[in-house]
């Protein structure tokens, strides 16, 4: 049981917020609630948070903005809640910095599983030992540090985990399914857009020219690989 894990839940519907809080507290987590985006940002600044759960549809500043604001100052895992899976909302939310998403109505069990996967991944990056080098790219898994041309670049936990996963077998092609399973803990039917958007985000940080990636390369129809 992850005692001491603090979750910030941003949801404007009071009944949903309360029910989700009850369910998450049953998992042994501490839940802080926020009704609006503004309240969420204030709470986030006031106290340390391990996972943020954001409903995209919020009055005032919306979930995307909350997501972006948090991302500017923190690499905390963010799960967003969307109304539908097939809209642009999912991609927009992931691009705003979310690590994973759920569609309403979701089972709290599913939410707990997602949160656990995010927490596991954030911690697992703290172990490991090797010092990896890909051209101008330098990865030190045990320190959670990535440098390009000697300069440290800032990655979210999920981006870092994705990069380390690709770096574990340089040159090997990883399918989206494999990456979904290893990084997010999803099975065969996970949403491939999670991988695509995270690869895109990763490229803007580790590539000199994200439009013509040298390190994180797409292998059409098969997946992605990391090269020097």
């Amino acid at each position, binding site marked *: 049981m992850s005692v001491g894990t603090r979750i910030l839940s941003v949801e404007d*519907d009071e009944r*949903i917020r309360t029910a989700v809080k*009850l369910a998450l507290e049953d998992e042994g987590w501490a839940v802080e609630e926020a009704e609006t985006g503004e309240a969420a940002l204030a709470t986030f600044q006031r106290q340390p948070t391990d996972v943020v759960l954001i409903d995209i549809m919020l009055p005032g500043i919306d979930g995307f903005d909350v997501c972006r604001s948090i991302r500017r100052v923190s690499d905390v895992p963010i799960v967003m809640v969307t109304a539908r899976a097939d809209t642009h909302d999912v991609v927009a939310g992931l691009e705003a910095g979310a690590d994973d998403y759920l569609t309403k109505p979701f089972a*709290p069990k599913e939410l707990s599983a997602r949160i656990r996967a995010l927490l596991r991944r954030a911690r697992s990056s703290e172990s490991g030992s090797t010092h990896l080098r890909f051209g101008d790219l330098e990865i030190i898994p045990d320190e959670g540090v990535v440098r390009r041309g000697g300069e440290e670049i800032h990655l979210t936990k999920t981006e870092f985990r994705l990069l380390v996963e690709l770096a574990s077998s340089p040159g090997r092609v990883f399918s989206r399914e494999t990456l979904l399973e290893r990084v997010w803990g999803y099975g065969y039917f996970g949403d491939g857009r999670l991988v695509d958007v995270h690869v895109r985000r990763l490229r803007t940080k580790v590539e000199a020219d994200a439009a013509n990636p040298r390190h994180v390369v797409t292998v059409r*129809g098969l997946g992605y690989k990391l090269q020097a």
Partner: protein
Amino acid sequence: MRRLRLISRLLPRLGLRARITIAFAVGALLMSAVLAGATLGLTRQNLLDQRESSATARTYQNARTAALQLPGPSDDPAPASSDPTDVLASLPTPSGSNPVLHVGDRWFARAPEYGQDTLPPGLRDTVLDGQPALMRFDHEGATQLAVGVPIDSIDAAYFEIVSLGELEDTLESISISLLAAALITTLAGAAVGWWASRRVLRPLRGIGDAAHAIATGHLDTRVEASDDADLATLADSFNEMAVALEERIQRDARFASNVSHELRSPLMTLAASIEVLENQRDDMPDRARAALDLMVADIERFQQLVEDLLEISRFDAGVMHLDLEEVRVDELVLQAVTNSTDVDVPVDIDADLAGVVVRADKRRLSRVIANLLDNAAKYGEGATRVELRRRGNAVQIAVEDDGPGVPPEDAEAIFFRFNRGSSAGRRRDIDGVGLGLSLVAEHIRLHGGAVWVEGRCDGETGARFVIELPAEAAP
């Protein structure tokens, strides 16, 4: 009248265009026939009158000439050429006209084949009785005109037999020309009718095309406004109807979508609350536990129903987007089967299908397979076998069950919404509202494939649901 009724009974079977064409052709035929008939009749009468009057005038003239040359009973010194044969030969007659002379009791003819025997007896007797006469008659297949004038002064009579064969020839060539003209007019009438009907029907065809487009889902189709006042009304009414229809359909789709969306929030609260209760299940009294179990089971059904309704409303609103990617079909089917059923269903995969790729929305296709397995569990005593095989450029995914099978009359209807087939409807214990198969049909249609139900291949009773998807070459 009976004939007309017969025609009107026959005509409706033909298209409007054919009927207009026929009407124009028949009209042209009737009109040209009347005109030709009148022309022919008048011409004939005219020519005959001309012939008759000229023949009559000449006959009188020749009779007078003959009267002067023939010796009368009182004439003592006979005139120079008093022989009737000579007189006959000297009379001026046009070709085709044969003079005959009766003097005393003897007959004289210039041409031996046109003699007193040729003359109709009625005419001959009348003239010999002292009355001039004129008669048309047939002789050896040709029409002849006979004119006779008595020459009282010398007890003689003069006749002319005029052949009307030439006239008949003229009339015949005129009638051939008129017939040809009538024929051409009829054809021209038919052509004009065809063209006119085409012009008249063109706007109708435009409206027909628009109606077809609307029926196939292009609800925003409209008919172009027409300058023609008569057609403008039709086009306007059609467009009004199309607008009303589109609004109505969109309103229905929006309503379904809104309702389902609004249901999400309370469902979310219910699902989360029930889960909290489930965590306390062991501490509950038996009765509370039984009630909780009922809630857990029905909240799942409820969630599935809302999910299905949302999916359906997306189809109706035309906003369904597939997340298409190239997937290995064998892997997808295996994963979908493992993912969606607790029972161990054997999956037979054709050996040559290894690595065959389809363009599909993985999660939706998985839902489709799950729905078929679910359907087999609810109505078919459970799925017995899933088969995956190649059929030319397509792959077929078949789900077989052990149930009573689907009667042929239901084979199409079970894919309609809220339809569970006539036999399923009698089983009250089955949960499910009948959206599963209609979603299967809609998804597969959007994937460019087909779905149908048939009997099992091995001859056992049971249904076999087949999905056919276009296959792509392996990458």
